[in-house]
């Protein structure tokens, strides 16, 4: 094990998979000569050349579709969106072409494509640049979605995504890029399966279900609650689709109380589905109504104080826990 940044972990995953499989290539805005808007693809152009690390014009719909077409005939594209807010320009390709092809063709066409980039509100970027898209894409059958919250997960999940024969969205988080964490040495072929949640902290009084940027918030909340004799368990979903239902149900069956901390919007958000499934499958295990901490249901304001009021945070998670504990 060694300590590397989330950015470095993603970079290693890209490099290893591009080196391993000649069908894998990386395409997107500023990924090559500029080394990535967030420097995730640093050095890859030098190492692999312009045939495999490809700068595109600002044409998200075009290059997302190009990737899907290339995947239909056997390549394994990695398409970077500078942010997933811009993936909305390519929504038709991601929602209508990538996931439908396999079904529509009666099983003839797998679309082994990876869409990746930062997702969710960063800091004061305003309404157009702050979309948490997981709930939009989670609604679409045929798409897989993972949300790495640690450098190790970033590497292991991205590598798995690239090898998957289905379209996979790897939703990164901008404010994680420079954060460090323990990752296996470079000679380890680190593959983390999609659909396996991780228990980040064991507890007995309440389960806090989190993913992506809410993981550190949930851990901080648990820390704070421990001082008040509330013992919270923190689950990091790691994948939104497939979602690790057994892990969720097992934890809730132990704690009987649930707070879902999500970075997307509340209405039809990821937590809405989780809430439904918990009450449907293990209703009798619940000792209190399920709580959700999500964004406020508004477009993201630029003003910092208002933005903070919209976003989930540790205090909101603590307050939600205290309501039911």
């Amino acid at each position, binding site marked *: 094990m060694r300590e590397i940044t989330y950015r470095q972990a993603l970079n290693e995953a890209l490099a290893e998979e591009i080196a391993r499989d000649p069908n894998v290539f990386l395409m997107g805005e500023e990924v090559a000569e500029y080394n990535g808007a967030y420097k995730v693809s640093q050095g890859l152009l030098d190492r692999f050349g312009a045939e495999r690390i490809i700068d595109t014009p600002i044409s998200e719909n075009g290059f997302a579709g190009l990737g899907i077409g290339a995947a239909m005939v056997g390549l394994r594209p990695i398409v970077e969106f500078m942010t997933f807010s811009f993936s909305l320009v390519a929504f038709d390709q991601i929602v209508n072409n990538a996931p439908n092809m396999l079904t529509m063709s009666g099983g003839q066409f797998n679309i082994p494509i990876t869409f990746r980039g930062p997702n969710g509100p960063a800091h004061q970027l305003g309404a157009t640049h702050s979309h948490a898209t997981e709930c939009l894409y989670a609604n679409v059958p045929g798409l897989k979605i993972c949300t790495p919250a640690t450098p190790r997960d970033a590497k292991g999940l991205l590598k798995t995504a690239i090898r998957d024969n289905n379209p996979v969205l790897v939703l990164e988080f901008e404010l994680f890029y420079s954060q460090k964490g323990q990752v296996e040495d470079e000679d380890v072929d680190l593959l983390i399966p999609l659909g396996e949640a991780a228990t980040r902290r064991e507890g007995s009084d309440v389960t806090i279900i989190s993913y992506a940027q809410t993981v550190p918030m949930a851990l901080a909340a648990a820390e704070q609650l421990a001082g008040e004799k509330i013992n919270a368990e923190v689950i990091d979903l790691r994948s939104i689709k497939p979602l690790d239902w057994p892990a969720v149900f097992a934890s809730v069956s132990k704690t009987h109380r649930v707070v879902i901390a999500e970075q997307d919007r509340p*209405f039809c958000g990821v937590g809405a589905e989780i809430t439904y499934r918990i009450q449907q499958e293990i209703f009798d295990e619940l000792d*209190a109504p399920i709580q*959700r901490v999500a964004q406020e249901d508004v477009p993201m304001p*630029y*003003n910092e104080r208002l933005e903070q009021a919209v976003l989930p945070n540790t205090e909101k998670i603590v307050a939600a826990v205290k309501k039911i504990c």
Partner: protein
Amino acid sequence: MAQPEQRDEVEMLAMMLLIRRFEERASQQYQAQKIGGFCHLYIGQEAVVAGAVAATRPDDYLITAYRDHAHALARGTSANACMAELFGKVTGCSRGLGGSMHFFDKANHMYGGHAIVGAHVPLAAGMAFASKYRKEDRVTLCFFGDGAINQGGFHEALNLAGLFKLPVIFICENNFFAMGTSVKRSTSLKEIVDRAEGYDMPGEVVDGMSFREVRDKLGEIIASIRKDPHPAFVEARTYRYRGHSMSDPASYRTKEELEKYREEDPITRLRAQLSREGKLTNEQFDKLDKSAKEQVMASVKFAEKSAEPPLEDLYKYTYVGDGESGVAFEESSERTTVPARKTSARGTASSKNNGDSAEPVATRSRKKA
């Protein structure tokens, strides 16, 4: 309807100075962390928006991308309202909700401030459609960068404008780079202006470093459009002196290239022309510059002193799912009651903000086996 009047050149020089000084100050305030998010400066490109605005009437529609401070200022939005927006204050042109990339000023016919590359180009077609629909002789000015011309929405909008003969001028501010990508590396055409041909509209290249050339060419096109509505395409060749945004060192360009353009500086050029013609003395210029600096300094003070938007504003301007609609800008000041949901904006988690029933948790009946 009023005929296009040419704005006084000295006045427009003052406008360009105001833009330049505003952007310099914005840069400094950004570094002092008074401004958040992304911030894109217009320094070097002043002649494009100033020349275009000088050729239009104040009631013509104007819409642009995210490098938008100058477009608002040129349209008459006060430096105060612009700086306050950058500071995220309620006195800002978008009430502190939009930020640098999302300036709006309806009163001055400035329709944004749009940060998704290419996404506002169809809106410009729509605004022009409305003018034609109402049989008005307004022209819509749509500004965008060289990076926008490869987006699908851009092409669809140009086709619609060509097809419906809409009174819109698509003005490509070609500063040769979209972030770190040069036009050569992004576009399959030799000349950007050639896009016009594909959509059956006249296309012109103008020197975007020359106020007079931009104004005169735009003036001709506008006169033609007012007579008989049609779209047009203008490629204004210009240069941004700074990086793409505050975080971009612009290492993909050479110092020499930048210096070459600095020698053609649009402000220096117009000043020299005016003084050669005996229309502007050095003292007069210094006075204009001093006034620009003072306005900008005052705008910083104004922004600093201004209040933050209240938390209630979150829902005040948003349509929310339970049938509570947002309110339009004009009506907003009269509105005293705010939607009940505002309580959930106070930083606490509540079941109310989840789109669930508004019934408080405590009163829910619960059945436990």
